[in-house]
């Protein structure tokens, strides 16, 4: 070999050493050096966690009857990794077998609400013959499976819907909420309580999901058995204070009352000829006066919870949310705000003696109207009641008596703002103007005060302007209307029931306890049957009704028992002693649109040893005695297991 060649062979050697050195260096960088982090992606790339929801807890009534439960349902699923042509062919075949439009199946397949890894659920509640057709010809349906899933089921579907609440999928909420939920272990497609008990007790009802860690190949297909399995736990059962039998009667009575109201004359607009009432909804609530537990909570119009299972269809949602549907999703007991009308007179009744404005025994002459501070205030229908004391004023529902009371308080307010707001203070003690604290959540309503009026004026008008002066001034009429539950007073049916319950539980002691209304009785673990949480009643405060208690109680009892009582006819023949107060709250017209009065009846029974407070309300239902009182009667009859008295379809009334 020449020296030249020898040099060249040596150069080749150097080149090859350089090549190997660079390979070693690169290997070091990748495995031991800065690029090690590339490998971190491997475990997430090659494994996936498949999370499946565990069965949700049951919701039961106080007697253990099932209101909501998870049941097995047969579903048809389609694998994710099918070629588009195969998928379309398979969906076409399934459409024929399942008798479901192909586009519906495709929409389900592509729905973002479903997790992308497990097979897509394209149809639920598949009939047996279709299941068999698919299973027997599985070779014709590549990637198709018939699988058992759990879905929510409602044995008493159509009742207590707003109370129970519906379930929705997690990703139908906003992005920030989704982040928070994902932190709690939810993933898109998971069901979550959206309303009512399902929402309030979400953390209890929801089980711990089953989590399988599986290895996947690059196409996302599972390889081999799971690496690890966390079996999860079933959700706890929630037993409610609700009695489904009373609930059903309450809902049916409410419906019957609304139907009956449609045939009645709108007496508030008698001057416009014979107009019938056009009720838009109503509410009934039954409270245990001794601990605030809710026995029944009815809201009308209502809907079927089963419509939400598997995701509510756009069509159904449009029906539920149309203006003419009058918002069936709204729980009117907790979230409906109404002027209480005369049903509110309990509050000034208590305030008059508590603040030594007018002794219960003192009579006021009721001539059907009264001129106060230059304005004339009339009784409903201009009825003349003659001389009335507190008891009679309640029994016959004398507006003049309470107009006077409101005016008297206004006059005191001019001198002593604290004493002068006695009606508002008692309203607060009875739970008005603030949330009741019920676990379902509710609205606060409104009890107007001079401070509130000023704040509204400040927000809407230039300070010092004539408009501001007018709107910020606390006029006598403001306090007068506050005394009779008109004007700017707004209460929820639940607040009204809770106020009457507070009055009722003072029977004998004159000291009432304002309880926190609640629907939960006990939470149990379905596996161990052990009690996880027993509800302890929570008192929010007490109120001393003083010596006037017996006069007020007699007045409320007289509403039903006295032949002159406003609800006497409605309860004729009922042996159970009921005490209550009718309410007929007028609603101001808006332009040419007239609204019938809100029909209310707030009560408790038995009058001599109260157990339950019952409130019924029908929007545009006319007089309280016409519709609301007969509804309450039916509810009371159902609690005492008496035959139900039909709601009169032809009645006139007074308040």
């Amino acid at each position, binding site marked *: 070999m020449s020296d030249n060649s020898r040099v060249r062979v040596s150069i080749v*050697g150097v080149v090859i050493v350089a090549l190997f050195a660079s390979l070693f260096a690169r290997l070091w960088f990748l495995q031991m050096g800065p690029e090690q982090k590339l490998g971190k992606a*491997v475990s997430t790339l090659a494994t996936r966690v498949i999370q499946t929801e565990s069965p949700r807890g049951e919701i039961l009534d106080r007697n253990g009857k099932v209101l909501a439960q998870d049941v097995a349902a047969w579903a048809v699923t389609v694998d994710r990794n099918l070629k588009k042509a195969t998928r379309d062919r398979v969906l076409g075949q399934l459409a024929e077998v399942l008798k479901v439009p192909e586009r519906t199946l495709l929409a389900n397949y592509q729905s973002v609400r479903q997790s992308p890894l497990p097979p897509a659920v394209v149809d639920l509640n598949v009939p047996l013959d279709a299941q068999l057709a698919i299973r027997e010809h599985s070779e014709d349906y590549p990637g198709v499976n018939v699988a058992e899933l759990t879905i929510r089921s409602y044995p008493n579907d159509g009742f207590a819907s707003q109370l129970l609440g519906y379930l929705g999928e997690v990703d139908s909420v906003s992005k920030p909420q989704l982040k928070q939920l994902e932190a709690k272990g939810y993933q898109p497609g998971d069901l979550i309580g959206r309303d009512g008990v399902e929402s309030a007790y979400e953390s209890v009802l929801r089980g711990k999901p089953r989590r399988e860690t599986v290895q996947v190949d690059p196409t996302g297909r599972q*390889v081999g058995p799971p690496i690890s399995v966390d079996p999860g736990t079933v959700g706890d059962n929630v037993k409610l204070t609700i009695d489904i039998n009373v609930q059903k009667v309450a809902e049916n009575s409410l419906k019957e009352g609304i139907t009956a109201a449609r045939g009645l004359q709108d007496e508030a607009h008698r001057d416009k000829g014979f107009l019938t009432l056009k009720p838009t909804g109503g509410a009934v609530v039954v409270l245990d006066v001794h601990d605030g537990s809710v026995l029944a909570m009815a809201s009308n119009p209502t809907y079927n919870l089963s419509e939400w299972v598997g995701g509510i269809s756009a069509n159904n949602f449009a029906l539920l949310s149309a203006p003419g549907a009058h918002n069936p999703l709204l729980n009117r007991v907790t979230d409906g705000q109404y002027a209480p009308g005369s049903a509110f007179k309990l509050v000034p009744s208590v305030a008059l003696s508590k603040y030594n404005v007018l002794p219960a025994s003192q009579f006021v002459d009721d001539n059907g109207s009264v001129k106060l501070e230059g304005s004339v205030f009339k009784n409903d229908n201009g009825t003349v009641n003659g001389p009335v004391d507190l008891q009679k004023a309640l029994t016959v529902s004398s507006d003049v008596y309470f107009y006077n009371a409101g005016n008297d308080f206004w006059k005191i307010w001019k001198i002593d703002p604290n004493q002068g707001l006695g009606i508002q203070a008692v309203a607060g003690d009875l739970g008005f103007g603030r949330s009741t604290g019920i676990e379902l959540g509710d609205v606060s309503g409104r009890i107007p005060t001079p401070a509130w009026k000023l704040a509204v004026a400040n927000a809407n008008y230039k300070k010092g302007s004539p408009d501001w002066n007018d709107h910020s001034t606390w006029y006598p009429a403001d306090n007068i209307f506050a005394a009779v539950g008109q004007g700017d007073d707004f209460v929820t049916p639940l607040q009204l029931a809770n106020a009457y319950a507070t009055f009722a539980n003072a029977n004998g002691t004159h000291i009432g306890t304002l309880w926190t209304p609640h629907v939960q009785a006990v939470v149990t673990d379905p596996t161990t049957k052990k009690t996880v949480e027993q509800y302890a009643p929570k008192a929010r405060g007490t109120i001393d009704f003083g010596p006037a208690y017996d006069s007020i109680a007699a007045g409320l009892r007289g509403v039903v028992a006295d032949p002159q009582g406003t609800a006497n006819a409605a309860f004729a023949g009922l042996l159970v002693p009921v005490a209550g107060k009718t309410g007929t709250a007028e609603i101001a017209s808006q332009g040419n649109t007239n609204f019938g009065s809100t029909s209310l009846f707030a009560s408790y029974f038995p009058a001599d040893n109260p157990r339950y407070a019952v409130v019924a309300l029908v929007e545009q239902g006319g007089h309280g005695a016409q519709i609301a009182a007969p509804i309450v009667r039916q509810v009371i009859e159902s609690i005492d297991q008496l035959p139900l008295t039909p709601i009169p379809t032809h009645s006139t009334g007074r308040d």
Partner: protein
Amino acid sequence: MASITAATGRRRTSAATDTSLFAHIDLALLTLPIAISILGLLMIYDASGHETAVGGLPRLYYVERQGIAIVLGLVAMGVMMVIDYRRIRDAWPLVYLAVLPLLAGVVLIGRNHNGAQAWFQIGPLQFQPSEVAKVALVIAIAGYCHQHRGDLDAWRVAVAIGLAGVVMAIVYAQHDLGTMLVIMVCAAAVLVIAGLKPVHIVVLLLLAASLVGAAVVTGKVQAYQLDRLTSFTDQSTSHLSAQQQSPTQFNLGASKAAIASGGLEGAGFGQGLQTKNGFVPEQHTDFIFTAVGEDLGFVGGAALLLLYALLAWRLWRIALLSSDFFGTLVAIGVLAMFAIQIFENVGMTMGLMPITGIPLPFMSYGGSAVIASFIAIGLVLSIHMRRFA
């Protein structure tokens, strides 16, 4: 050693001295390919689990076939050792002419495989003539240069390049760009050692550069070939989902991730998730090094590279020890062939080189490559054995 043989007296080759020939065998060069092949069998087993499961093949399908190829390769290596390489040297035109029809035939009737038409289907087996052609071309150019040693003028350089060019053109027609480049490197290495003048080297480099440029400009380089090159230059794909990446980018990402996850000691044989679950495509063939990297870690990967380095050193050593110029040229050609394949293959799995379909010698699944590699080793062993004869 030379002094000892000198003392016992040098004799011309005869049947009686064949035993002494085998006494001069390079045991390191003999055992290294066998050791690497056995490691290769294990890694093919490791890396083909997902592939066989998906394809519904027996678990040992690839291992068995590779095992048969190794046995055939060992036999071929033995045959090459027994044959005196000087007879092959003198018959280089025959070797060259024998391989041409095989190469050409495959273009006409070959089967498609990953964009490269390079296979003969012989019963259940596939035969890839371009693997054998690499060795044949090394022999041919070395033979030609040996014939005209010390007198390699421009004309003769052109003839030598022509010999390589014909083979390269046919291989290019098979869309086997990788093998074409390997052949080019082998031919260049042999020519450089054979005494290519510096001026020739400069001219050839310019020529090659302009050819590559022309190929890209005129679109002779196909889309997937360009993709392989560009994915090498643009490796930051973290912002892309698996679907958005080109297949090659996905390959490269998965390949690097698999190796990086190996760390020092690796996940353990059969434990690496990427390997086990088939995340790296073509893993039992071109991307076998990722299985080594993931499962055996830096320790395993470095050990394998060390074995290759030892192999390269033995080949280089024989280039210096050869008793004739042909032996030196063949040893350098074979060294270049292995070195470029190892560098390109291992380099591409780590993002150091563009992705091409070049097997890792003795490791990658593929019978033709294994047999051709053993033939090459046998030839060099034959040169080493006969360095005194």
